[in-house]
């Protein structure tokens, strides 16, 4: 799947990646890339505005971390972020199920 399809689901992908545990921006992108078996290769720069927005919306929290020897911002899912992820996941599963049904009928 390419860039355009991934763009519409950036929030869901970021929240899902962070549900696995706290991470900094680069690690979040790597998680998405590895978990999707390199199918989802988003332009890396698009991730940060989305992370900042999700933080402002209270779905993520962040803090500075210097344990790696470099100053980096680490993001974590908040309680409302988990709740939102659950809603997004249900919506996506229901949507993909519907699309799959239509596709199955067409083949």
């Amino acid at each position, binding site marked *: 799947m390419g860039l355009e399809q991934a763009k519409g689901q950036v929030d869901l992908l970021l929240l899902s990646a962070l549900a696995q545990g706290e991470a900094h921006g680069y690690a979040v992108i790597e998680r998405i890339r590895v978990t999707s078996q390199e199918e989802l290769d988003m*332009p*890396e*720069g698009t991730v940060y*505005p989305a992370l900042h*927005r999700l933080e402002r919306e209270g779905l993520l929290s962040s803090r500075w971390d210097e344990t790696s020897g470099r100053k980096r911002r680490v993001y974590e899912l908040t309680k409302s972020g988990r709740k939102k992820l659950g809603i997004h996941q249900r919506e996506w599963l229901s949507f993909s199920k519907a699309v799959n049904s239509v596709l199955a009928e067409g083949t």
Partner: protein
Amino acid sequence: MNPIDDYLETLATELKVSKKAKERILTETEDHLRERAEREEARGVSRAAAENDAIKSFGPAIEFACDFVAERATRATRSLWPLLAMPAGIALFMPVIVPTAYKAVVRDNDDLNRTFVAGLTTPYDFTDVAVFLTILLGCSWLFLWSKRSHVLPAKRLFRGLAGVWIADCLLGFQAVLWLPRDIPPLAVGVCGLQIALCTWIWVRASNASKLVKQSKELTERTTPPASLAA
């Protein structure tokens, strides 16, 4: 300077956000680019090639900056609407609250029974005229400025603001007329509060307009002309 430093310098120039936000974005970007370049280098790629690859994967600095500025502009514009309701609320309630509060304190009904029309029959004192002229000049200025604005959403916003201000000030002026003649400081206070609020909103609105303009400029720079795109 290496490619990453060049990139960060361009980004710093294009990012029209607060100082704190800029610092954070630049630190995060630098961390990202350096980590990515280090990983590439570990795979045997030369340093310069690794840094260029990291920048290519990250995307152009202008596009990255544009995302942040556009988001900030949207937030700044959205946050103005509740603020616009504030002077409108004061305009509606001040003429009721102030005379009622005065009535409760001094228990004097004579002046409060005067209507707006009745108020006009009494001679204005210097304070009334001064406040009214200030309001009138402010409104004219706001209208002229709104016509000069070439950013469409901001134009609508300023016109809305001007409308609220006029309604606000007219009602405020009515409140001035309602008030007994012997307490001009309170009358001035009522109008002064409105003017201060409107000025504050004006500053916020100007800032939002500036951000919308900057965002539009950045978007234009990142979008190729139609002739090229075709």
